[in-house]
């Protein structure tokens, strides 16, 4: 089953370990500015830390604007063919997520290649903000959230070892009884 590199920004603490390991893996250098994943720290409003990385779109806009067809979607990864790239960086400009990066030392745009299926950033993320999920599981957390926000749900609060917990439940409708 195809796997997808998924970002859960609520879990991100902004440590930028992902940036470091990406640059080390691909360029062999200690330089977070040569990474295909970057953490945007926004404050004071909205308060969020957002890792931005390629979504490997099935209909990649970057590939559509590429004048030399250097970018192609192959088996779940939008791959860059270096020999065909002319370094115009149209891809970086057109990506709707801004997930393609440019660095003055590098001729080629910097773009996530999924590390051949085993992304280092996912492996080294200390909080689980970056995950590798089967495509079929995408949206799972939203589905769960939806269940939890079902309006007819009731809830009780309790404290377990000093920590507040909430149990939500749906009661059997009276009329059915």
């Amino acid at each position, binding site marked *: 089953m195809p796997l997808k590199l998924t970002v859960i920004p609520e879990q991100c*603490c902004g440590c930028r370990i992902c940036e470091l*390991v990406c640059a080390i893996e691909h360029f062999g250098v*200690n*330089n977070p*500015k040569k990474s295909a994943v970057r953490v945007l720290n926004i404050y004071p409003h909205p*308060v969020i*830390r957002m890792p931005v990385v390629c979504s490997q779109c099935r209909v990649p806009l970057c590939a559509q604007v590429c004048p030399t067809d250097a970018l192609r979607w192959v088996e779940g990864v939008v791959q860059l063919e270096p020999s065909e790239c002319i370094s115009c960086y149209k891809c970086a400009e057109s990506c709707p997520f801004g997930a393609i990066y440019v660095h*003055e030392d590098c001729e080629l745009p910097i773009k996530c290649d999924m590390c051949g299926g085993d992304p280092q950033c996912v492996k080294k993320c200390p909080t689980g903000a970056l995950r590798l999920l089967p495509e079929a599981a995408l949206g799972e957390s939203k589905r769960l959230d939806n269940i939890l926000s079902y309006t007819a749900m009731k809830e009780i609060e309790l404290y377990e070892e000093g*920590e507040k917990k909430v149990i939500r439940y749906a009661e059997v409708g009276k009329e059915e009884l």
Partner: protein
Amino acid sequence: MSLKGGYFKKGLWVDLTRGAIETRSLADAFLERYIGGRGFGAKLVWDNLREHDFKIDPLGAENLLVVAPGPLSGVYLPSSGKNSFVAISPATGLYGDSSMGGGFGVELRQTGIDLLSVAGRAAELSVLFIDGDGAKVIPMPELKGKSCLQAEGLIKERLGSHIVHMATIGVAGENMVGFACISADWGRNAGRTGLGTVMGSKNLKAIALQGNKDLPVYDMSGLVAEADKAYGYMKEHPFFKMWQRQGLMNVIDYANETGILPAYNFKDSVFARCEQINGTTMLNHYKIGDSACFACPMCCGNICLVKSGKYVGTVVEGPEYETCAMLGPNLGIDDFAAVLSAARLCDELGLDTISTGSIVAAVIEGYEKGILSLADLDGREITWGDDDAILELIPKIAHREGVGDILAGGSRRIIETWPEMDRVILQVKGLEQSAYDSRASISMALAYATSDIGAHHTRAWTIAKEMEEGSNWSDDERVGIVIYHQKLRPLFDMFGVCRLPWIELGLNELHYERFYNCVTGGSLSLDELLELSNDVYDLTRLANVRLGMSRRDDSLPYKVRTNPPLTGPNAGKVINQGEFQRLLTLYYQKRGWDENGVPPASLAEKFNDRV
């Protein structure tokens, strides 16, 4: 041996008076000997003192502000986001330094320099902008009176870039409040010894950075192997998750249980309503996110939001232990939302939360005891737990309004004005004491007393160990642990890394020896590195002695030797002055200093080589 990695071997010298900016190369001998961070700062400040015949006004143009990350800052290893600021301190008049985490030091290195030295005074309020191509001083008088965050926004707009990192000062720094801090990344502060004040005295509102250079690492694969081991070790530690969830806020309960939590200006060392301001309360009601410094898996920072009540909408990075203790229990405040509000106020104004909490607490007690009259307080009463009055007083300090003008001068000015306040304020050498009650631990009292920057816990934090194991310690062991900490802990500041993975998760010291050698291509042992950091301790002692400090300044605050905590496990305990003096003499002996704490004259020769 020549250094094969770890450094760009370049420093940037800026003179704001002349507008002169100069890049100088740094000799291997200097880099090897002083390593980085606080080591660089100590040496440069020492040279500057010698040049000025040891007469430097902390607020004068001649005071040098050294900004220095270390050779490990920004490198792939746990918690490598530290940066030191060093200058002669306005709080103590002696050597001062403070470090901050976040990403500022990493960005500074990525501009291609190992250190930044700022001298002089700009004609008008300015911003120093550095990128890979050089540096420029940009006058921005419109930043006057702006909070750290507002200034950051305006500078980003002016530079047309939203990816710059910067360190800014708030109104407190502009107004030269004795304990103003330097802020970066929204909640990271170089808080202590008033270095924001030094920036203010130079008319320097901010240092903005944009860099993209590779950091020089000699043995990358060796480093990655070592770092992965260390990260793996930390992740497996039983307390790792707790650190991610609570960060330093977990210390509140520990300090309360063991009786070292400051309450009511250290009148007590336990707080009855502790559960209203502890880590669990934060987690259950206020925390909305984690925050980490660069490359740190522990992410001990918290982001908190007040969701209802009179402080609704208050959002702040923090608090951590010191801030919560000093602005909470130490002021008698039991409302966590009020603590957050005070913390945010300090962040915006650019005030150190430890000194601010300590001074406000002293004012409350001074008023209670009748040392301060209502007229002294401009007619506004202030009592324990009165959050409204406290939140009114804090901005008055930053703006130097009314009584705030005297308080802004810090402990020394307050005691000059009202000599009896010496019995109320806990300070050593003019720096207000951190939030660990040393009456529970004589080694901690010795650590505060002998710290080169004043009563701060960064030099040696021996209190937990002494409480756990120290009941039968000999004098030798008590002094020994203080000296060991004072040797080891500077090394973290010199490397440019955080010490928490070591002290809290037990990451072995030897990891750092290997990190250093992988990055620089050197072959120094931990003992050799400790010798170098010990030299830095000797050097700052020498500087302080030449600035007029002596044995009488290695002292205990009045309360610590006279007034015991009222309740809790350490009720009735004070530090016996005779016992303390005995330990102090032994401490000097073990350090090779004389009876007055003066290092041998020959020692100075070691540090007089030219950079």
